[in-house]
């Protein structure tokens, strides 16, 4: 899923300063799963903003709504009748949400209420870890199912570097040295020999480096 982090309240309050009628807009997709932008979090953020408004002696006109997804125009369309009635919309979907909203409703100022951080999964309740950086050419099967591109601080394809110590990365004792884990895993699978190959340079054209990406499926296109 796409994982995000709430923006600091101070930053959100600053965004909506002077905007009277505000909609806090959640998404039932990834951000609901990672507990940052679902119905529940819409309720919390909206309540906090109302508390702030009341404290400042202002009318607390903060409304709540959560769409099935903010990355599909058909769900965004549900707001067609009401969107322009707001002075500001805070989208707490991933970075796609505020952009799709802005594109569909160009007259309404849309603000991001969360910072989109990475593509990852839940390691335990309340803890998420990065697993993918969408390089566009998946190679994980060659590395014991562990991605060196997303999970090595230097994206080394021929690691581990000299900074690997006690299974940890040189950048922080909180970061696993994925290359240590790759070597261990491949060894356990009896495939260590495969890592002796010098991996050639990666083609980054399929990654963000090749420019913004778009995918067209002719069989699905209308």
């Amino acid at each position: 899923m796409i994982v995000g982090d709430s923006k600091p309240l101070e930053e959100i309050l600053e965004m909506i300063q002077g905007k009277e009628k505000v909609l806090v807009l959640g998404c039932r997709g990834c951000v609901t799963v990672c507990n940052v932008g679902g119905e529940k979090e819409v309720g919390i953020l909206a309540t906090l903003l109302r508390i702030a408004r009341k404290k400042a002696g202002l009318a607390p006109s903060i409304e709540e709504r959560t769409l099935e997804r903010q990355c599909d125009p058909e769900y965004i369309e549900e707001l067609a009748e009401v969107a322009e009635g707001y002075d500001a919309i805070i989208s707490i979907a991933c970075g796609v949400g505020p952009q799709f909203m802005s594109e569909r409703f160009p007259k309404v100022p849309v603000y991001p209420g969360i910072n989109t951080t990475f593509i990852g999964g839940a390691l335990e309740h309340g803890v998420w870890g990065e697993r993918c950086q969408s390089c566009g050419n998946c190679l994980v099967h060659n590395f014991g199912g562990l991605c060196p591109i997303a999970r090595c601080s230097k994206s080394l394809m021929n690691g581990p570097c000299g900074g690997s110590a006690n299974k940890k990365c040189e950048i922080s004792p909180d970061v696993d040295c994925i290359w240590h884990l790759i070597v261990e895993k491949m060894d356990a699978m009896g495939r260590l020999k495969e890592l002796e190959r010098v991996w050639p340079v990666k083609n980054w054209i399929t990654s963000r480096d090749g420019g913004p990406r778009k995918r067209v499926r002719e069989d699905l296109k209308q």
Partner: protein
Amino acid sequence: MKSGSNLEKVLAAGHFAVTGELGPPRGNNVEEVRHKAAFLKGIVDSVNITDNQTAVVRMASWAACKLLIDEGLEPNYQMVCRDRNRIALQSDILGASALGIKNVLCLSGDHQRFGDHPEGKNVYDLDSIQLIDTFRKMRDEKTFLNGKELDGAPGIFIGAAANPFADPFAWRVVRMGKKIAAGADFIQTQCIYNMPKFREFVKMAVDQGLTEKCALLAGITPLKSVGMAKYMAKFVPGMDVPEEHIKRLQGVDKKEQGNEGIKIAIEMIQEIRETMPGVKGVHVMAIEWEHRAKEIVEGAGLLPRPVV
């Protein structure tokens, strides 16, 4: 001869090589480079010029290399993959070669989170092994990474680093082997303090035939004080400073700790030279202690340096 560099010639002639290290200044202080270089002249066969080491911005390595050439020393241009993509890496080695630089050391580079610009974006388009492969290709096949022909190929002696003390230990020799397979002509190791572990590493390298294919130079950094030893043991990832060294330094008067550190370095060089035939030289990294490099090299009986 691949490059005709002094280092290559010294090794080819079968001499025990000695390389040194110089960190460029945090500014354009040319005198500082010349001042440090003067201490190393005639003491080492080639001087590594670090490339923004520990991710702290310093004078460009290639520029400091050129200053050394002008002073009559031979530089070894360190290049890290952190700050440059394949376009810049290839361009820089061509430029360096044009300036008369004949040795290059290919490194991944310390992550920028250590450095003085931790907010920066890194590159890591290539890793160190791919960089070695790229330079070998440029030199031997006279083509760029994309296969297009070069208008003048760089004659460079290609180096790589190995850290026998990083984890996982058993994989370290294999990874060094990958660097050699990619085209490394020489290897300089991380600072050695744990001799038994290094001996094991060398034995594995000899057994795999790696020391026949590539010149292995052992990294030596004198311990200046108990404080430095403790700091390296505790805070530098991939550094292994055994307790016995710390105890030995603690055993002498504070003012004498530096001298004792130099004594330890000399003893280690002698031990390596006498008991590890797989090792073809030493890389003396007297960090911010360039003026004492001579004592170490001289003390180890490695002066005068051969003229080849």
